């Protein structure tokens, strides 16, 4: 019998026992839907994290002082002189208080050098960044982060008004829209010279950020920066208690690998439910073989070879599993769409997910269909015909 004829037999049988076929598929439907939905959650989550990390700049190296007097402006100047450095800025941070009227809250006071806004390019919600005039020796301008602005209940009307940082008067020139930031909330930004008047000592800085021209140069630059600082402070190859250098790219890689592991874990859990679904199919197929023993006997008597019987039952299992996979895929994508709406990430149907879902359900059909199909094919015709 030609394959098409055998496939027709299998499909007829599935159609003739619709309810049972649907119930048999259910395990695979749930398994595949779970895989698709979970993959989409992991995708969405890593999308969000990567977006946050990208705002920090992927070519950046953060050199953070381990003590208040570990790094200086001079270090920063030397680092800026390295090859392939496009931008350098320094920061000096400390806890402090911000106040307006009778409101007073804690915030992180961040002194930044003039290149900061150019390098980080945060979104501005109100007013403007610190301008070059803000960096003049006598100017006392401040830009608020979104959370700090919320904490104080700042409104547009207060732009140009006076706020108090650690009790000193500053003029509010802008509010950043730095939401979804990675630990940047509750911050206010002032020129680094102003920061020195508030909390820090010249010439010390709490961190130096340098940016490489291209992503490929980041690793080399990190090495060069490390060598330079070790030489300046006469540090051996081992000890690095004075500063740490963080590479944004390696941070992104680390996060990506965490989300990949998370994805693998969730997919693994979903795969278990798919295996359970496959066992369900195998179970029903074995019952079906038993119920249809006589039919198998008659088919053998009227000329069906073992291979015909094997193919018929195998196709039946594969069709059940694959159909379950298609239904599961559709349900999973629908779930993924709503999760994307709720979680505010971009919904997309990924071809590899579709391939994975269909490939896995095909595999499940083959793996769990072979045994029942072989059982059917190996029945002795005379025993099968006499089976009650």
């Amino acid at each position: 019998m030609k394959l098409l004829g055998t496939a027709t037999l299998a499909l007829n049988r599935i159609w003739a026992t619709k309810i049972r076929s649907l119930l048999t598929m259910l395990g695979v439907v749930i398994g595949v839907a779970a895989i698709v939905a979970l993959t989409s959650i992991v995708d969405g989550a890593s999308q969000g994290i990567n977006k946050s990390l990208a705002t920090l700049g992927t070519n950046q190296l953060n050199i953070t002082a381990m003590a208040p007097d570990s790094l200086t402006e001079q270090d920063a100047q030397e680092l800026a002189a390295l090859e392939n450095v496009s931008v350098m800025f320094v920061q000096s941070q400390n806890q402090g208080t911000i106040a307006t009227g009778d409101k007073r809250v804690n915030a992180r006071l961040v002194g930044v050098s003039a290149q900061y806004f150019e390098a980080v390019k945060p979104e501005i919600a109100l007013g403007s960044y610190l301008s070059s005039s803000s960096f003049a020796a006598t100017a006392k301008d401040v830009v608020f982060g979104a959370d700090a602005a919320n904490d104080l209940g700042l409104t547009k009307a207060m732009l140009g008004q006076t706020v108090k940082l650690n009790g000193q008067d500053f003029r509010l020139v802008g509010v950043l829209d730095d939401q979804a930031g990675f630990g940047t909330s509750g911050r206010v930004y002032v020129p680094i010279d102003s920061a020195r008047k508030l909390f820090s000592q010249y010439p010390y800085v709490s961190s130096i950020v340098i940016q490489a021209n291209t992503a490929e140069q980041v690793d080399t630059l990190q090495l060069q920066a490390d060598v330079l600082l070790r030489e300046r402070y006469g540090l051996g190859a081992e000890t690095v208690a004075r500063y740490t250098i963080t590479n944004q790219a390696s941070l992104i890689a680390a996060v990506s690998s965490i989300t990949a592991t998370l994805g693998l874990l969730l997919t693994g859990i979903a795969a278990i439910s798919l295996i359970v679904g496959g066992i369900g199919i195998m179970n029903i197929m074995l019952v079906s073989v038993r119920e249809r023993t006589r039919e198998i006997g008659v088919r053998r008597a009227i000329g069906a070879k073992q291979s015909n019987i094997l193919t018929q039952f195998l196709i039946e299992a594969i069709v059940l599993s694959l159909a379950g996979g298609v239904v599961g895929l559709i349900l999973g994508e629908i779930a993924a769409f709503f999760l994307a709406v709720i979680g505010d990430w971009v919904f997309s149907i990924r071809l590899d997910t579709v391939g994975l879902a269909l490939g896995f359900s095909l595999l499940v059909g083959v793996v769990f269909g072979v045994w029942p199909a072989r059982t059917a094919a190996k029945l002795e015709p005379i025993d099968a015909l006499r089976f009650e």
Partner: protein
Amino acid sequence: MVRFQHRSNSALLVEQEAMADEVVRLDKVRRDYLVGDQITTALDGIDLVIERGEFVAIVGPSGSGKSTMMNLIGCLDRPSAGSVMIAGDSTNELNDNQLTSLRSKAIGFVFQQFQLLPNTTAIENVMAPLLYQGKSTKEAKRAATQMLTQLGLGDRLNFDRNRLSGGQQQRVAIARALVTSPDIVLADEPTGALDSKTGAAVIELLKDLHRDGRTVVLITHDLEIAASAPRRVFLRDGLIERDERGAR
């Protein structure tokens, strides 16, 4: 009754020349079964020749070995000893696939309980043996339609078995047995599940097949049914008790 008009004169000539053909030859056939740890002998050294065009009834009570005989002639089973030749081929040496091929070519089964395939229509049942032979769907459909029409079921082609009477189901089963033009029509208690009137009609149909030149082997426990065959082989305890010819 039904007439089979599809045979041409030349085919009839070939048929007559071949009358002397042996379609079944059993030589010292023995068949033992292992039941539990005991060996039971179902057939105990049987010699039997059936020639092309014969109508033979194999008669015996249950346990006489007639089912075993049917399985051996029907190429469903192989002997423990001795040789079974069906349409010139020895079944002893054949593997499962070869045995299936021989069965498909040489044997048309008519079972007691009709044994129509579930969830299939009359025509699909009759097409099945041809499809298993590798014929195209188109070819199988044409042959099946012709066969069912000859048996008076031309208006029931797409009925499934729930919508066919017992007699009609048995005629579908006979059409399924005949559609491959087998060397032997092997009928196992074909009237067993029918009332006496429809049963008689089925026997008439088998007689027609015989008159038409086909070889018919009828397995039955019923002496009255067996009497309709011109040759009757009586089995008892795995041995041939009598081999009668001529009308009774």
